[in-house]
């Protein structure tokens, strides 16, 4: 598969403090690539480096096989960007704002703009400073997609959108994906990442700690186990559990990702007074990585 975004050894230091370190990503054409991590992990720094808002300390970023730097500004013709907070010119109407944005591109953006306006139910005659947060986000979505970019970078894309609009937004993303657009999707909302992304990278403390295909979460074998037993310490030792989430008297809560038969054989040797086994949901899986 052709790679549309390639990030090699990207490092950014703010003075002496760390921003991101040795980020390595390869994003294939036509995929929606999730990017998640706790606050301050380096998601926005990575995005700002891709958009060339800030200078990299080391590393290279390629979009459509062209390097991103100040000289190669024309590459932005092929990139759409949706920031987490939208800041536009307050005194313009939505129509004028969209026309101004279109004036930067060589192509005719009218058709796609009209489609998106209709789909997102945007009132073009309103002034930017009259828009609610959600409506501003909708304008941001049109601005990011109206020039039919090959790559779209989205940071907290659905914040401010009501559930109905979120659905429409997911539909738009599916349309874009079907057209072959590559989408880099940074989000805090894990359920939406699971729903729309094909792959996900997890960033923590400025470094990528895991890259997974989303289907791994469907066939994941991680279990959350809660056992109450007088012999709890022996059980934990025999199961070689390192990550105990809670321990209270004879009760232990932990994540088990080993072989299931071994688990059953082991616990059958002990006297168990209470046993609860649950499949981990996406939140738990990510929390497991974050911790």
């Amino acid at each position, binding site marked *: 598969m052709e790679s549309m975004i390639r990030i090699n050894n990207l490092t950014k230091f703010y003075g002496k403090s760390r921003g991101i370190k040795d980020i390595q990503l390869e994003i294939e054409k036509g995929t929606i690539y999730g990017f998640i991590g706790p606050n301050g992990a380096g998601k926005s720094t990575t995005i*700002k480096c891709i*958009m*060339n*808002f*800030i*200078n990299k300390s080391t590393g290279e970023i390629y979009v459509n096989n062209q390097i991103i730097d*100040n*000289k190669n*500004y*024309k*590459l*932005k*013709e092929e*990139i*759409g*960007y949706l*920031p987490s*907070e939208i*800041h*536009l*010119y307050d*005194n313009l109407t939505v129509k004028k704002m969209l026309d*101004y*944005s279109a004036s*930067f*591109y060589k192509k005719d953006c009218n058709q796609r703009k009209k489609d998106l306006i209709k789909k997102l139910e945007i009132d073009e005659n309103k002034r930017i400073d009259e828009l609610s947060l959600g409506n501003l986000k909708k304008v941001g979505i049109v*601005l990011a997609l109206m020039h039919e970019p090959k790559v779209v970078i989205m940071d907290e894309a659905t914040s401010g959108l009501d559930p109905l609009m979120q659905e429409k937004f997911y539909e738009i993303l599916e349309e874009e994906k079907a057209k072959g657009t590559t989408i880099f999707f940074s989000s805090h909302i894990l359920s939406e990442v699971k729903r729309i992304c094909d792959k996900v990278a997890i960033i923590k403390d400025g470094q990528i700690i895991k890259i997974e295909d989303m289907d791994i979460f469907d066939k994941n074998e991680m279990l959350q186990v809660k056992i109450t037993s007088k012999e709890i310490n022996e059980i934990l030792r025999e199961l070689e559990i390192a990550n105990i989430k809670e321990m209270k008297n004879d009760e232990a809560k932990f994540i088990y990702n080993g072989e299931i038969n071994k688990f059953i054989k082991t616990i059958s040797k002990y006297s168990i007074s209470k046993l609860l086994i649950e499949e981990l949901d996406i939140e738990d899986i990510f929390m497991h990585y974050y911790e």
Partner: protein
Amino acid sequence: MFKREFKINFKSLMMWSITLLAIYFLIFSIYPSLINEETKESLKLMMESMPQEILAAFNMDIVGIETVFGWFKTEGYVFLVLLGGIYSAILGSTILLKEESEKTIEFLYAKPVSRSQIVTSKILCGMLNILIFTTIITIGNWIGLHTSEDFDLKQFFMISLIPILLYNMIFFICIFISTFLKKTKKAMSLGIGIVFLSYFMQIIGGMGESIEWIKKISLFEFASSRYIVLHNHIHMTYLWVGIGIIIACIIGTYCRYEHKEFK
């Protein structure tokens, strides 16, 4: 980009120009009625009682203020360059930095436009604003002054147009300073501070020979009407040094902006 920038700044340009013109027209219309034989005599007495240094600071030792053109060459000119200087400082401090301060720069940076294109459109727009400002004031002043009995067209145009050098210097110094800052409020205070500091340096430096060097390094000396009144031509050294400072600030602005980080 240029068109949009011009539209944004047009309101402020008109406000500054019209306010300044209104003040001048008010003075031009009432000044002749204030001057008669009696007031001329009391003006003369007042001037004689004032220290020579103070008179020199306002050019009143070389120009009489019995006519409205005389007033323009002294107090009127000080008023013009001071207000024009403040206007240029505000323009320079905000024209580039406003986008960052209001975070709309994120929108511009996401477009297929280079950073130098952004700087160029802002600089050209600022220069055009200064040119229009000076033209409006010059035409307005010509209408108000050309009937004055001692009106000298060549001197009037030199005095009216030399502030363009000063305004551009202030504008480009402020733009350059703004590339080191994040917020327009700070840049504006600093810009206006520089204008007032320069103004007082010129006034104080004009009060005595031993402190004349203070005056020579003031930005206002680059648009000194005193030299024009005395020699009837522009001080060429100041003109070239002024242009040099402008070019240095332009180069500095492009270099700084090319590597500036938007966090």
